[in-house]
């Protein structure tokens, strides 16, 4: 108990004094996760919208695949990206392994199915509701998609936050492709795992507090967005 108390006290101190090492890890974590979510959004939202609205061969298979990939184990994904980026892999010549770029790639692939599948579900429901009215307005496909994206903006924000929550809390994939190199690829989750295995709980707890605050903030934001949707 005393170990926990002293570790917790040191952890709070690290957070309150904005310890440089802690800050560096937090900023890298945010940079990697936010970049991954941004890329996954740019690819995943149009993809989800396309599957929700257009009829084409293989549509149902892609939708099922996306839903299945939502539960893909991060370590398996990490392993696949590792093999792709390793010297012997097809992308080995770019030397991306053990860089933040590799971590962004892994997290993007992890978050992409979540954002695409949730977007598909949200827009498919909306499309069913608005389809006849839009056809009555003689709306073209792209204009219809634009309107659906706007109509579903609050729900889609929730999908983005779900993606961000998944990316920021993930440890397996970034550990494999990033290597947890100090000042290069060390992020919050990998640091927590490493410090815990070393028996040094202060930094691990400090990062744990920040992660919990981050997850709480995301959840509060989701609640606020949903409340806003109800009120407006």
């Amino acid at each position, binding site marked *: 108990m005393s170990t926990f108390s002293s570790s917790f006290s040191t952890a709070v101190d690290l957070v309150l004094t904005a310890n440089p090492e802690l800050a560096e890890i937090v900023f890298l974590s945010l940079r990697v996760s936010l970049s991954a979510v941004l890329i996954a959004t740019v690819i995943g939202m149009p993809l989800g919208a396309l599957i929700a609205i257009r009829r084409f061969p293989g549509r149902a298979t892609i939708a099922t695949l996306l839903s299945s990939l939502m539960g893909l184990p991060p370590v398996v994904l990490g392993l696949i990206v590792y093999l792709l980026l390793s010297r012997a892999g097809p992308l080995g010549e770019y030397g991306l392994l053990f860089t933040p770029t590799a971590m962004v790639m892994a997290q993007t692939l992890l978050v992409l199915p979540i954002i695409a599948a949730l977007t598909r579900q949200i827009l498919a429901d909306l499309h069913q509701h*608005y389809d*006849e*009215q839009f*056809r*009555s*307005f*003689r*709306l073209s496909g792209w*204009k219809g998609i634009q309107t659906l994206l706007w*109509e579903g903006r609050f729900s889609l924000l929730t999908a983005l936050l779900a993606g961000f929550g998944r990316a920021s809390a993930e440890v397996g994939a970034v550990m494999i492709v990033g290597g947890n190199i100090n000042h290069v690829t060390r992020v919050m989750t990998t640091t927590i795992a490493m410090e815990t295995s070393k028996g040094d709980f202060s930094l691990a707890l400090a990062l744990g507090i920040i992660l919990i605050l981050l997850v709480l903030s995301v959840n509060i934001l989701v609640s606020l967005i949903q409340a806003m949707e109800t009120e407006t």
Partner: protein
Amino acid sequence: MRDKNRLHLVHDIGAKPSYEYDLRSSSTAGGILPLELVDIGYEVAGHWLLSEINLKIEDDRSTIILGPNGAGKTLLLRICHGLLAPSRGSVRWQNPSMANSASAQAMVFQRPVMLRRSVKKNIEYAMKVCGIDPASRPHQLAAALEVSGLEKHAEQRATHLSGGEQQRLALARCVAINPMVLFLDEPTAHLDPTATRQIESMIGSLRDSGTQIIMVTHDLGQARRLADRVVFMYDGKVLVSTEAIEFFNNPRNPEAAAFLQGNLLW
């Protein structure tokens, strides 16, 4: 092309501004009418829900499609509006390219479909996607709000309105678009008498302004109040297409006569 500014704001100094329709001759919708249905059939899983439908809808101002449930009224309306393709036969407009433009025809559904935005923005959206001239939009918006009695709710979220108000908004969008032909699918099916009266009043105004009304209902009273012409359907077929007065006063078809007397048809 038809004048898109058919609704005119009338200012009377010292009085509340009001809107009135510039009543045109009944040839307003004549640009795309008559609408001719030739040997229309609609099949689902080997069962013909509509068959052998041959019908010509002239510029009669108000055509009411009557019939019991399951007669195929809504299906026929959707085929006319282009929401469904018939399995057989063809839908022929007088001027197909004009008829298929977004502002030439509109439809009001049994359950109104509202965007999750304000009343005003719902109307503005409809005008934008239907290609209404931007310069005339504020004028058309004001007229639509006035006619529908929704001025007080202009900034309110459309999905927060009551069922009757939402249906009025659906009609207000049509007033703003000012279509040549307006299809209505039982627009008062879920409404109380007061809301029904308001909707009928709006439909009457649109009809008087020159918009051709083609409406589905199984409410005989409503049909009597609004119809210039009646199309009676039964079991996927059109049995009668005649003047409303003749249909109600002298129904020659036995099924139509039974329907008017309130007898059960099967």
